[in-house]
């Protein structure tokens, strides 16, 4: 009705201005990074490797967020706690059950076994949470499952406290080799590379599952239209449950690697980590798998650069940087990096 009027044209101008501001901010960040690279390229490289390693963990957890949001539009705040429980359960298996506290071939094999066990446990846990806490609220106002998720988060945190001990931090031992690879002046810890070696196949497997399998197709269909999927014979409840299970398994893998890299477990590690991972999912475009992975790596790198690279403001500004980027994305590109690509959405 108002086509051709000034009112309709105005949003168009605003949008262009917003795009310019967004690009300017992005360009500013890029210039900042390039300047830091020029000032101290070796430090920049070392810190970036740390960022990629941490980013791998954020990516795995972000996938869980993005899948659940993509399929039932729930921000599952308890997901970070599943990551935390994954790290503690993995530590219990490695140290108390398998008695592995140093780097050796047996330890590496048992680490893989522990990863499988932990992924199964956390997948089952996440499916249980979905069944007990979220399913009945699926058609409730959006705030109800959100508050429930926060509540579940605190329940899991208390479970973590019971398992991990009352101290917030508990020292653990890693079985990953504590050696470095030297690329010229750059030393890269082998454990960081091992994290990548575990993460990348998991991400590829995830992509294959969603894109190529029948379950994946059902997940995508459910994400597109639940009612239509049900009419097509898809058991929507089961598919949603599978989605939670896969998310829980990926969070468990991230938890195991976090405990191996940091050599500690914390019962209060989940909430903040989950929040950052969710930010990664938002930056990538909530509901988009590739976006979540890219967002995870981006956040990991920004985190590390802010904390350690030259010309960046230092550790006390890490949260500010990350959430400023979140705000910038939400304001200037609310769909995230790949946000408009609906066909890839789970």
């Amino acid at each position, binding site marked *: 009705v108002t086509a051709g009027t000034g009112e309709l044209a105005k949003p168009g101008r605003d949008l262009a201005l917003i795009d310019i501001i967004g690009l300017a901010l992005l360009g500013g960040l890029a210039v900042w990074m390039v300047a830091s690279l020029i000032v*101290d390229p070796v*430090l920049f490289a*070392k*810190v970036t490797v*740390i*960022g990629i390693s*941490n980013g791998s*963990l954020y990516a795995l957890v972000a996938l869980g967020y993005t899948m659940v*949001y993509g399929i039932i*539009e729930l*921000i599952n705040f308890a997901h970070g706690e599943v990551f935390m429980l994954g790290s503690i359960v993995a530590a219990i298996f490695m140290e108390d059950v398998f008695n592995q506290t140093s780097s050796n071939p047996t330890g590496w094999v048992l680490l893989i076994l522990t990863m499988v066990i932990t992924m199964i446990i956390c997948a089952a846990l996440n499916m249980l949470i979905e069944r007990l806490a979220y399913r009945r609220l699926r058609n409730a106002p*959006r705030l109800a499952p*959100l508050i429930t998720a*926060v509540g579940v988060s*605190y329940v899991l*945190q*208390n479970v973590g*406290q019971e398992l991990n001990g*009352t*101290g*917030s*931090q508990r*020292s653990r031992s890693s079985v990953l080799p504590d050696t470095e690879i030297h690329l010229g002046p750059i030393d890269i810890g082998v454990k960081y590379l091992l994290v990548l070696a575990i993460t990348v196949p998991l991400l590829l497997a995830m992509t294959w599952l969603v894109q190529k399998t029948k379950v994946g197709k059902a997940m995508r269909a459910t994400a597109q239209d639940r009612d239509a999927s049900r009419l097509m014979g898809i058991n929507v409840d089961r598919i949603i449950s599978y989605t939670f299970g896969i998310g829980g398994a990926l969070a468990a893998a991230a938890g195991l690697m*976090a405990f191996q*890299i*940091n050599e*500690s477990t*914390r*019962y*209060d*590690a989940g*909430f*903040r*980590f989950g*929040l950052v991972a*969710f*930010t990664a999912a*938002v930056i990538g475009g*909530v509901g988009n798998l590739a976006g979540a992975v890219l967002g995870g790596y981006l956040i990991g790198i920004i*985190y*590390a*650069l802010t*904390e*350690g*690279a*030259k010309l960046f403001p*230092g*550790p*006390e500004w*890490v*949260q500010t940087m990350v*959430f400023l980027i*979140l*705000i910038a994305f*939400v304001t200037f590109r*609310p*769909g995230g990096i790949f*946000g*408009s690509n*609906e066909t890839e959405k789970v």
Partner: protein
Amino acid sequence: MRASKRGGMKFAAVTVVLATLAAACGSDTEDDAAGEATGEATADATAEGSATAEAPADTDAAPAAEGSLVIAIEVPLQGASKDASEAAVNAANLALEQAGGVAGSYTVTTKTYDNSTAAKGGWDDATCAKNAADHVAATDEIAVLGPYNSGCAKIILPVLNQDPSGPMLMISHANTNPGLTKAWDPGEPEIFYPTGTRNYGRLIATDDFQGAAGAQFAQEELGLTTCLVLDDGQTYGVGVATAFKAEAEAIGITVIDGGSWDAKQPNYTAIFENAATESPDCVYLGGINDNNGEQLIRDKVAVLGANDGAVKLIAPDGFSGYPTVQELPDAQGMYITFAGLPTSELQKIEGAAADFVNAYIEKYGEPASFYAWYAAAAMQYILKAIEASDGTRAGVTAAAFSGITVSAEESVIGKEFGLDENGDVTIKDMSVNIMQDNTETYLKPWPLG
């Protein structure tokens, strides 16, 4: 569909920002139950406890009934400080037990308040505020012993100071932030004493001494020249790090200001990689271990090498008395300053000090962390104040600042002590300890001044 997703996106963004704010505010309202009494409770008075730094509106709190009084003990009983806090409670109760549970003509019992939350894994500002209101409202409470953390003390103190039946006395065994008793940050210490009357004392030396001692030790004993200084962003950590930096610069140590570490970070290797480019030979951690300190120690060693190598690690007493730190392989060789005398030195002082330590070990099976002895000393001082008072809160506070002392013969810290007009202890000791063989071992005393 697209519009709906965008709407969802905005909802998600708003939610995550709100959640971030909630996280940033800490778990301020997450665990009120944590503030409930957990110890040898005798008082059943409770307050609704507004979580603000003001006295409750109901100001009819009557003087404590003559004959039976309660001393509140304020400590964090969850998180990394749990062991040290439990030891402090035990030591204070043992000191009371040795005094026969009386002070003058009054029967005295204790009530323990937990000022921590599980979610925070340490002291919590909202819980401290609630506890402060509870102290004022509990009419049989006569004084507060504690708290452990300076930040918590800064919340509780103004509330107790405005107690209409007080001010209510608070004696801390562990607060080292200078601003509680003397000029430090803007407005301090006057902002903690709205009535103008002092009601706070502490029995250990302050961070201006401790931070300076750390810097002097780094240069004079270890010959260090360049120090990376980090703090945990909290009252205590920033204070002691500031004092270290000031003294270090004054005596010629180059300071690399590393800023504040984020307690919720998964690791800190990037911080130390950055510092490594400036070749420090020392790292100073101004803060408390509760704030992910062990991860910081691990990452320091991972990037800059072992503590007995080229880059030494020095920390203040915020890292003292933690069994988990003592048993951490990467903490071995780390130096810790302590604003008092450690167990081994107290045992050498024949008489009340050694007797008390031995009695504690006999009762609890192991020596306490260092601050526990000062909690026992705080109990002794409060009992003296009650004895010299008329049994009211105002009377006990006035007595505490009237020049009373605990004599060397009865002092659990081996020396006669009292409070000066600011509330600082009249004797000040400083020790340097080292982590060796999974034990925090006394290395040497450090002269103050």
